[in-house]
């Protein structure tokens, strides 16, 4: 189904260790500043050629995680290592140089493009910035890049508003690929596109990855899209990863009750008749984070301990990582049964 990725030997391309990011948020002049833990103790790693899908509701911190991974923001705690080296300080020369190796694909391609410059000029911009190739060779490279993402050479002359949404996203992708990056962070890359062309865009992404071998962090609220492109997925809830594992496993046998609710929301022709846990309670508010397991007010199987103690993200027997008291206990139970 997917090309197998790195074996995990040696250094990962990207290692994120226990990063956190807090914001002070004020809701009014007379209100107190509230500390919002947008991201709280997230760890993950990414190999060359691998796609990690990051999924969760809006406000769960997945976009902030993307920005931390790229080094666009410095974490308040923890560390990000790229290719074995710590992330340089935001904005310095080393940081700017590193941009050539890690790129971002945005949710809103129209906003990410300069409406006053033709597409070709913008695709060539990373080459100019990082002084790659001879100026005379750049037009050919632009044509090549446009071709790689399925745009015609004559579309280099077009302005962003003259293209369709899907074409704009392809242009953004071409610009991101110009420097042959090792890592691509795609933040909701398809949610602004028509449903009819979302599949096309995802296929293009996978095809490019197979050809160019970059790692992808694919951020989306759409579990189906994430499953289609990812080698592994991580489910986030209120700033923390609650479950991480192989996409089919997480989808067909979710261990965390939140992941179960997400998976159940996907229409499944084959699974009719099964009970579907439905999310109850209020949607999460990052500024008012519940104590203990942040999911407990909405959780159908919450217990006393869930209100007081934050569950750690621990590997189960099958290698899947889950942050849930109940899931770990049942896993331990299964283990005991097996042992018996």
């Amino acid at each position, binding site marked *: 189904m997917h090309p197998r990725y790195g074996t995990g030997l040696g250094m990962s391309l990207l290692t994120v260790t226990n990063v956190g990011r807090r914001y*002070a948020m004020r*809701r009014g002049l*007379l209100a*107190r500043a509230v500390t919002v833990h947008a991201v709280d103790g997230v760890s993950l790693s990414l190999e060359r050629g691998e796609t990690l899908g990051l999924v969760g509701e809006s406000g769960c911190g997945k976009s902030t995680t993307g920005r931390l991974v790229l080094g666009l923001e410095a974490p308040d705690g923890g560390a990000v290592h790229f290719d074995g080296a710590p992330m340089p300080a935001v904005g310095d020369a080393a940081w700017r140089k590193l941009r050539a190796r890690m790129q971002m694909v945005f949710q809103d391609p129209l906003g990410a493009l300069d409406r006053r410059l033709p597409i070709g000029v913008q695709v060539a911009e990373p080459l100019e910035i990082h002084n790659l190739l001879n100026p005379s060779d750049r037009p050919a490279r632009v044509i090549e890049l446009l071709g790689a993402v399925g745009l015609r050479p004559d579309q280099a002359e077009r302005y962003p508003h003259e293209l369709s949404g899907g074409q704009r996203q392809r242009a953004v992708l071409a610009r991101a690929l110009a420097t042959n990056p090792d890592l691509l962070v795609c933040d909701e890359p398809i949610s602004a596109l028509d449903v009819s062309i979302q599949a096309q865009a995802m296929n293009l992404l996978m095809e490019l990855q197979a050809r160019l071998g970059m790692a992808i962090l694919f951020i989306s609220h759409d579990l189906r899209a994430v499953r289609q492109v990812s080698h592994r997925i991580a489910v986030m809830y209120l700033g923390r990863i609650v479950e991480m594992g192989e996409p089919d496993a997480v989808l067909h046998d979710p261990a965390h009750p939140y992941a179960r609710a997400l998976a159940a929301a996907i229409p499944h022709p084959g699974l009719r008749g099964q009970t579907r846990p439905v999310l109850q309670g209020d949607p999460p508010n990052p500024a008012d984070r519940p104590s203990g397991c942040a999911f407990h007010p909405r959780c159908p199987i919450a217990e006393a301990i869930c209100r007081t103690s934050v569950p750690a993200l621990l590997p189960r027997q099958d290698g899947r990582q889950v942050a849930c008291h109940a899931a770990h206990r049942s896993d331990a139970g299964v283990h005991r049964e097996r042992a018996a």
Partner: protein
Amino acid sequence: MPPTDRTPVSTGKGRRDMIRFIAIRLLRSLLTIALVVTFAFVVLRLSGDPAMLIMSVDAPPEAIAAFRRSWGLDEPLWTQYLKYFGAILHGDLGRSMRDGRDAIVLVAERIPATLALTIPALLIKLGIGIPAGVHAALHRDSWSDRLVMLAAVAGFTVPSFVLGLLLVLIFAVQLGWLPSGGQESWRHAILPVITLGVGGAAVLARFTRSATLEVLGQLYIRTASAKGLSWGRVVRSHALPNAAIPTVTIVGFMVGSLIAGAVVVESVFSWPGVGRLLVVAVANRDLAVVQCILLLVAATMVTANLIVDLLYGFLDPRLRSARSAGAG
């Protein structure tokens, strides 16, 4: 993410935000005044040697040296500045270099004359400008709206000295109804007050009109009218109070310029107010008087702004969060 200000957490969490808000505003106001004092000092002291200007060029060097010593002009600028600041903190604004009287007294003497022009003018501005603006907004694109707008544009584009001289030409020179300058009777005040009032009324009318139009166009007004309230009621109870909020700003500015808003008009009509004093003091390089006026103007302006700011916070809770973000 909700549209709120995001700053790193270290900014702290104030418990008494109300007091904090007022304290910050007060601090900012004091800072502005300190800035004005510094500005005045730097500009006035560095620009030239007042001794050479006050004394005649061929005055004996000993006389010039004595003059400088007596005014502290021979000390380093830094010392002069600190002394000046210290003196101001003690309420001492220096003495006029021309006649040796206290600058503050000299200026205070002129304030009633200026207020005699600016307060009636302010009443004209409010009395004509706001009703005209509201009327124009409520009858948008009618002939009266166009008339108000035309008058408003004219009020902006005709400088006060041109308007004043035109009035003199018509009512004093041609018709001989009113005096052209001086301060002998209340009749002398009529032309300057009209000159000041008309321009301001035009500005205020234009501002009020667009503020009202904006509010009228907003969704919640439409919601209110959908609930079956009469249009007149909607206008009175929703539109006007909301339109008043931005209008407070411009009125605050007008109140703030009560003391210094008549420089040109006082010159046109030879009216012995603060503005006239300023022009003369500037021409004479009378440092203490100019600084005193600058400070007075700044203090009035800053106080008016402070009041407007606080009023704003209370008038419109919607703005509190938005404004606090920029207030920092």
